[in-house]
């Protein structure tokens, strides 16, 4: 009897610890959002989202930064998504699973843990200086693209491996080539997972500062970008610049919080889209 009671107490304590942990995480996230919202919402209005900065960044909008972040993110995806998917297909469907592939996988995992500032320096050396793309959307996009490659490759590989082998065998047994099997059977069944992974990658890239610090971002520009070789303003860097430079800290700080709120809403929105897409494919999935 005593023993049983003691067991129950232990169980309750266990549950309590788990529940508290979940609650703490929820509270931290809540405080963060609340803090940003309260400080940021004051400056946000239609003009803030659509206008150029004015009076040496102490008033006006953040439109060029939003646009720049959009361009950089799209550029990174355009570069990394096809490359990542194709690499993942090669590694899961074609390559002989041996030492070489294992080595490549380890390499990719390590790539994922390289600090983002190192990617920034790498992008500066390779794209800005060696390839002579200059500080530009192109250099920044490529740098960000390389940074999210591991995320995309791993998400794609996992999605491909989830496709039952029976589908591949059935297709091959019908006289399909390996490529037909991949293109018409495997990929359509993996695409949900791949897209979800890619979008989560986007969410990450949109908020990165270090990789674009030397490769794409500029503190202030009068004109909107007109080619891939233009340098751009970007939200994360704009926030950094507002907080560290300039002569009107008070006004700048308000704008920085507004920009932060915009950025976090953007990233959460992107993640939300990923969740919706994932749920859509999960419902559609019939195996």
């Amino acid at each position, binding site marked *: 009897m005593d023993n049983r009671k003691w067991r129950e107490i232990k169980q309750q304590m266990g549950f309590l610890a788990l529940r508290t942990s979940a609650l703490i995480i929820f509270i931290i996230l809540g405080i963060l959002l609340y803090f940003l919202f309260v400080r940021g919402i004051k400056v946000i209005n239609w003009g803030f989202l659509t206008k150029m900065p004015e009076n040496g960044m102490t008033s006006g909008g953040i439109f060029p930064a939003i646009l720049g972040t959009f361009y950089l993110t799209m550029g990174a995806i355009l570069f990394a998504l096809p490359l990542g998917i194709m690499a993942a297909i090669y590694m899961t469907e074609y390559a*002989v*699973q041996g030492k070489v592939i294992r080595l490549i996988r380890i390499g990719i995992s390590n790539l994922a843990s390289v600090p983002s500032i190192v990617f920034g320096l790498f992008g500066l050396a390779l794209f800005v200086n060696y390839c002579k793309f200059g500080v530009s959307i192109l250099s920044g996009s490529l740098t960000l693209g390389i940074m999210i490659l591991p995320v995309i490759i791993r998400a794609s590989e996992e999605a491909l491996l989830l496709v*039952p082998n*029976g*589908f591949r*065998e*059935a*297709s*091959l*047994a*019908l*006289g*399909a*080539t390996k490529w*037909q099997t991949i293109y*018409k*059977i495997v990929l359509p*069944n993996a695409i949900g997972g791949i897209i979800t992974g890619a979008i989560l990658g986007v969410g990450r890239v949109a908020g990165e500062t270090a990789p674009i610090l030397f490769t794409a971002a500029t503190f202030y520009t009068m004109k909107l970008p007109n080619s891939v070789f233009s340098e751009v303003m970007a939200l994360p860097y704009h926030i950094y610049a507002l907080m560290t430079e300039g002569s009107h800290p008070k006004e700048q700080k308000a704008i920085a919080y507004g920009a932060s709120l915009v950025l976090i809403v953007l990233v959460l929105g992107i993640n939300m889209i990923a969740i919706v897409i994932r749920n859509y494919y999960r419902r559609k*999935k*019939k*195996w």
Partner: protein
Amino acid sequence: MVTTNRMEVKNLNFYYGQNLALKDINMGIESNKVTAVIGPSGCGKSTFIRILNRMNDIIIGSRVEGAILLDGQDIYAPEVDVVEIRRKIGMVFQKSNPFPKSIFDNIAYGLRINGINNKGEIIDRVETSLKNSALWEEVQDRLDANASELSGGQQQRLCIARALAIEPEVILFDEPCSALDPISTAKIEELINELKEKYTIAIVTHNMQQAARISDYTGFFLLGELIEFDKTEKIFTNPAKKQTEDYITGRFG
């Protein structure tokens, strides 16, 4: 002696790496007959049937010695196109594996990848193969439904229809009923019996009664060797080898 063997297996050895999985197999698979392969788990019967349409090519480090002839042509000869071989020798798997597509598209897929794009012809052949696999009555008014909505037995018949649609010469069945209930099993057995009029059939089964019911010839495999191969009747009433007798009388396995 005149043979009507559609396929012939000659001195077949099969290796997984260094491991000899099948030893010196010789047997014929006669046209328009059902040839069954029986044996205890791990005897190599599934490995054997997957060699017959080169599905085992996928396995890394595997090696085939000897010859597998289809209409006199060695299917492992270097100039042979493996895709063409698999088109001629269809396969139905142990676990029913319809694609996550509609019933119609499951069958149309095989036609399309084999270059048939005429819509009318696809519709005709989908209908014919569903009729030939005794599934038409049950699905004719819901061809757009996802294949996953079918029962296990229906899914397996859909897989048979899918294999039939591209008009192979030989159909291989790898334990097609092992996951099915008795009624579904009976339907598939009946179907196989009808299909042999048009096709040459080989079936792997661990169900001896099934082999006795539906096959004309039976091969008994044990530990990678073909112990005995003969008319089904002979194997089940008067086997020549002691091991065969022990197995069919249920003394082991």
